């Protein structure tokens, strides 16, 4: 189904936008129709993302489902999308949360229903696009595009202080983004000294920098003095730290890492339930994803100079976030601070730069999306009934809402990483990776592991205040338990928590190759680089098709590949020459379909840079 695969990623990304176009033409009074249409759009996109996920070949080429079209040739910008194991996992998460959010808001959002759903749909496309962009400018466009709908979601449908929170969120994020833009431009020029042949394509920039980064690593390892560096490496030595920090700040704000986290509690508290779910579920991962995809691979040597600092911040985030939770009275704020703690784990696992840690980090991103998304969802359902966020105003809820209590408790156990739930697998791997790390001392792991205790302390404290004891108000006796729609919304989260806890292997299988590549790239030039690093360093992507004037079909006869016996083992053994890899080479498909004729393109000589 190669033809399908080629457009499948585009479908996943743009279906929500298409439905946004549809919703825009619906009369705003038809609320149910608007909700229904949005739901269908989200659901179709979600199903497509599941299909995408299942079709992704774990041990196939790094980027699959690639599409590359001309966009702004003069600047070397192309429309280039594709997914690796991490991106496809996060896309699955985003796709899954989409319809859930619509369902969850069904009974909650009552004003400006159409605009609300338009924002959701546009946001969905922006997030999916950012996850799959392989062109840095395209990424930046999607990255910034995420801001606006989220700003609206918080600012229009939020609680009492929504405007303050929305502005804070917007400005905080924007500060980082602009610095990142500057860094993007700088790296565009630094990596490609030849005017006229420059490209914003991630792979081109990355591959162009590998040599320089290796030189720089060797130089820094030798003390950093008196090195004979190539011009690019010398530039990186001077400016690399600032460029890395510009990227790192943008992503760190998004994560959010301590101490740039203070937008998060406000944004979460003020955001409507849908906003909180998406914010926690997907948008925070954009930060960790950015570190993984851009900051460390592009600046491995400079990045490692800040590795310890970032790891310290991550551990502070873990412990500090957990301590903050103990001081909260507002349930949403508590969940928000618990995100700071959990995302600290994602960062720590990545910074450990061991395969276990990186895989755990990626898995923890998914887990956090599921369990914290579910916490915000469930709390949203409670808020609809009780209209207060303060713990003290509840109490004894388990008695009047037993089904709700059961759901909440299961998600709580996932959040505090009880074995058998998804949280445990992620947390275990992150901590194991941190202990195994050649870069971080075991103190990092020990401090991070205290979250095992603190996490249980604050979550169970909250559970007790809300669910146990006697109701503190008379109204609390009349809270109604979940209805069928709400159960349908919450049940998938609970099922996922258990499935991801007991059968994590299908998920980890897709993440593992991506984390092996991440570790290889982030440890480039380091004495602790893994043995198999060399083969994983190069980023292989499809080439830009020839200029649009030429009919694409003309490229057909250029590479008459002989068809060998289609045994998977033989296929894996075939050495694919650098940069000549066609778009689609998944392993398990019949060979005739693996080399689609449309993409059978010889690279232009300019793309074949060393």
């Amino acid at each position, binding site marked *: 189904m190669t033809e399908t695969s080629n457009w499948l990623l585009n479908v996943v990304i743009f279906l929500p936008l298409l439905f946004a176009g549809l919703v825009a033409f619906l009369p705003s009074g038809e609320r149910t129709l608007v909700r229904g249409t949005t739901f269908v759009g989200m659901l179709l996109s979600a199903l497509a993302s599941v299909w995408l996920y299942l079709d992704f070949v774990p041990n196939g080429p790094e980027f699959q489902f690639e599409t590359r079209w001309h966009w702004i040739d003069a600047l070397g910008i192309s429309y280039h999308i594709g997914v690796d194991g991490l991106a496809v996992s996060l896309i699955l998460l985003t796709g899954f949360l989409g319809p859930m959010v619509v369902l969850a808001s069904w009974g909650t959002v009552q004003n400006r229903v159409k605009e609300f759903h338009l924002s959701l749909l546009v946001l969905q496309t922006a997030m999916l696009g950012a996850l799959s962009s392989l062109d840095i400018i395209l990424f930046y466009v999607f990255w910034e595009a995420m801001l606006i709908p989220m700003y609206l979601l918080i600012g229009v449908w939020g609680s009492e202080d929504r405007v303050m929170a929305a502005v804070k969120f917007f400005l905080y994020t924007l500060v980082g983004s602009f610095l990142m833009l500057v860094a993007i431009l700088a790296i565009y020029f630094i990596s490609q000294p030849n005017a006229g042949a420059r490209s914003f394509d991630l792979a081109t920039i990355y591959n162009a920098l590998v040599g320089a980064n290796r030189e720089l690593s060797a130089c820094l390892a030798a003390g950093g003095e008196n090195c004979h560096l190539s011009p690019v490496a010398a530039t990186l030595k001077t400016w690399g730290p600032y460029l890395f920090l510009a990227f790192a700040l943008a992503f760190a704000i998004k994560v959010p890492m301590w101490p740039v986290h203070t937008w998060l509690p406000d944004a979460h508290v003020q955001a409507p339930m849908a906003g909180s779910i998406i914010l926690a579920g997907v948008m925070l991962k954009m930060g960790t994803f950015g570190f993984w995809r851009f900051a460390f691979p592009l600046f491995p040597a400079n990045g490692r100079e800040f590795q310890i600092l970032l790891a310290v911040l991550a551990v502070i985030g873990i412990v500090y976030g957990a301590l903050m939770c103990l001081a909260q009275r507002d349930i949403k704020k508590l969940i928000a601070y618990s995100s700071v703690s959990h995302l600290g784990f994602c960062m720590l696992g990545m910074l450990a730069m061991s395969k276990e840690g990186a895989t*755990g980090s990626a898995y923890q991103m998914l887990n956090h999306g599921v369990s914290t998304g579910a916490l915000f969802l469930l709390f949203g359902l409670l808020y609809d009934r009780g209209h207060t966020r303060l713990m003290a105003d509840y109490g004894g809820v388990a008695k009047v809402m037993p089904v709700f209590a059961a759901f909440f408790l299961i998600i709580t156990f996932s959040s505090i990483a009880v074995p058998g739930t998804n949280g445990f697998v992620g947390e275990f791997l992150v901590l*194991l990776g941190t202990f195994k790390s050649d870069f971080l001392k075991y103190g990092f*792991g020990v401090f991070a592991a205290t979250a095992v205790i603190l996490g*249980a302390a604050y979550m169970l404290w909250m559970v*007790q205040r809300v*669910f146990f004891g006697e109701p503190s108000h008379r109204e609390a006796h009349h809270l109604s338990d979940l209805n069928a729609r709400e159960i349908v919304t919450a049940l998938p989260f609970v099922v996922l928590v258990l499935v991801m806890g007991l059968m994590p292997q299908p998920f980890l299988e897709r993440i593992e190759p991506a984390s092996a590549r991440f570790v290889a790239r982030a440890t480039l030039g380091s004495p602790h680089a893994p043995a198999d690093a060399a083969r994983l360093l190069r980023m292989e992507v499809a080439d830009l098709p020839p200029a649009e004037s030429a009919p694409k079909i003309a490229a057909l006869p250029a590479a008459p590949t002989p068809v060998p016996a289609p045994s998977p083992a033989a296929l894996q053994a075939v050495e694919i020459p650098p940069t000549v890899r066609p778009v689609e080479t998944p392993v398990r498909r019949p060979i005739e379909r693996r080399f689609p004729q449309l993409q059978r393109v010889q690279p232009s000589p300019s793309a074949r840079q060393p």
Partner: protein
Amino acid sequence: MESIQHFFMTSPFDADSVRHALWLIIALPALGALINGVFGRWLGRANSNLIATAAVGGSFVLALLTFWHINDWNQVFTTPFDTRPIRYAVGMDHGTWFSAGDFIVHFGLRVDHLSGTLLLVITGVGTLIHLYSTEYMSHDAGYWRYFAYLNLFVAMMLTLVMADNLLLLFVGWEGVGLCSYLLIGFWYSDPAKAWAGRKAFITNRVGDFAFLIATFLTCLVMWSFVKQANVDNFGNVTAQQAFATGLREKGPVDFSGLEALARALPVDPGHAPTGTPAVTLQTEIAQGPLSGITYGTVLTAILLLFLLGAAGKSAQLPLYVWLPDAMAGPTPVSALIHAATMVTAGVYLFCRMSFLLVLSPTAMAFVAVVGALTALFAAVIAFAQDDIKKVLAYSTVSQLGFMFMAVGVGAFWAAILHLVTHAFFKACLFLGAGSVMHGNADETDIKKLGGVKRKMKVTYVTFTIATAAITGAIPLSGFFSKDAILHAVHGTTLAGHEAITHLVWILGLLAAAGTAFYMTRVWFLTFQGDRAADARIPEEKVHESGWAMTVPLVLLAALSVLAIGYGIPLMSAGEHGREPVMENFLRPIFATAESITSAQATVAVSHEGSLAFSWILAFVIAWVATGAAIFAYTRFFPSRAGQPAPAFAKRFQTWTRDKFYVDELYDLVIIKPIRGLASLLFRVVDAVVIDTLAVRGTAWVTARVGSVLRYFQTGDTQSYAAVMALALLGGVAWALVQVLK
């Protein structure tokens, strides 16, 4: 006789079918939990009871059949770590749970003589307690929830003992903690009970934190060792390759792998299998994050961390504080979870990893001392508790201390023997206490009971038998198991820690005397004497419980007596004469530990001490303490409420009753500072420093700068022109100066 022996030692089953049915032992109670948890509300009481009890009962039958199977010498279990098969065992690997990088862990189950023994205890005692609960919870509206939790607990406990690797064991380990949390806080409308559940979970989490770190360090040691070790460590190339293969296939947390590690790691070069230098405990780890630290040091650290983990689960010093509060749960829960099964998990953990423990005499000394101090400390607290369940809770803590003592001196079989007999008599005591409460309008204060024996004959007789068993006043099962421990402590010395073993022995004797004292006190105040004046209901209204409660009591009392059989030296043990049945039965499990001990002299066991001497000693101690208790409570201060007691006794009583203020100390030293720090950080760092000074400060500075700059943006052409002219002038002047220079 021969033929009977042959019958029980020949498996009637096909090995494959047993292997493939192992998971059912766990699945049955898990299914029961699922059915009761999801549909319980609509099932009705009788169905709910039936499903829950049948699920555990079915599990018990399967466990029995499996036990029969592994009694067969021909039943073997092979692991990739070892070329030789493990006898008397059956195992099943259900594939990978998860893997990443070098790490991999399987859903692997294993039943051998150790886990088989525990399987029978868990499912057997579990079935009886389920039966008991059907009546005990007959007036509770949340019965289906109760049975769902209880079934889930059994499933988790079975996972814990059947796991063939550390991580799957940890699933059960945390799973039982979770169920314990749910069951302690079962009556959650009472904030104190919900709080007790939370306290239990979080205290256990402190232990789990240590457990996890120990697991990580274990992984690192395995990975370092496989790179560093040479052929001499393993004896031959095949064994070395097997170790590497096993590590790759089964991962670093598999128990067989750890056993292979223990066998391959000699204590010092002098004891290396061959002459050439092998990696020893004194060798430094060559690379990785632990480089420069010796294997021995890391191993001791690992074991001490596991000790903290085990102290959490098994309520030892310093983490025992949750167990007495856990009595907030329904009494059958206390019997099953907080006496017979869950709290023994720490003992099981060390027995499972006996081969590692014996490599580090330092860690063993710590285990033994922690056990001995806990045993004595908890016994003293139990002197003055008035709540019958609290006394039993502290008694459990104390008895677990005995088991830790045994583990600490390497007498693993004695620990398991005491674990089994304790499961019988303590479950019987708890269920008896529950029966007393059931018949006395939920009264738990022993000073407000009294004379119960007249109305509750079955409860009285069974409670008396169990009391005799735990005190050792009559040589029932507890006498032999506790004496086995004290005898082993007396006859063992840990290399480098000789004085400690003597200290442990004396502490153990004192704790044994304490046990006899407080148990006699409880027994006496509850069942003997007159009815207390302020009893909740008059004596006429006291009633014996129904059959569902008395049958388990009778069976458990009978087991407390019959378990004598395990402790009596009946089996031939070569040159050392005869050895107890349990020691013989568990020999295949502890063979590695034993061979390490004898080859490397970490633990010296003397066989000279006479068993008869320690029996007589134990007997004397038990009777002295029992007599003292009876004397004190009949003659000296028969302290029902309101009656005077001597001043020194009162002061002692206040201290012990208030548990030596340990809870208050923890609150002051740990909980309050953390809470204070949290709120300080939130109010100062987060709200003021970061958000106000840094974030809003930046905004403020930006706004101020903007408003200053505003004055330059007047839109007045003349002033713009003036500025331009001035600037031009200045520039020209500067140029002139430069030129003239």
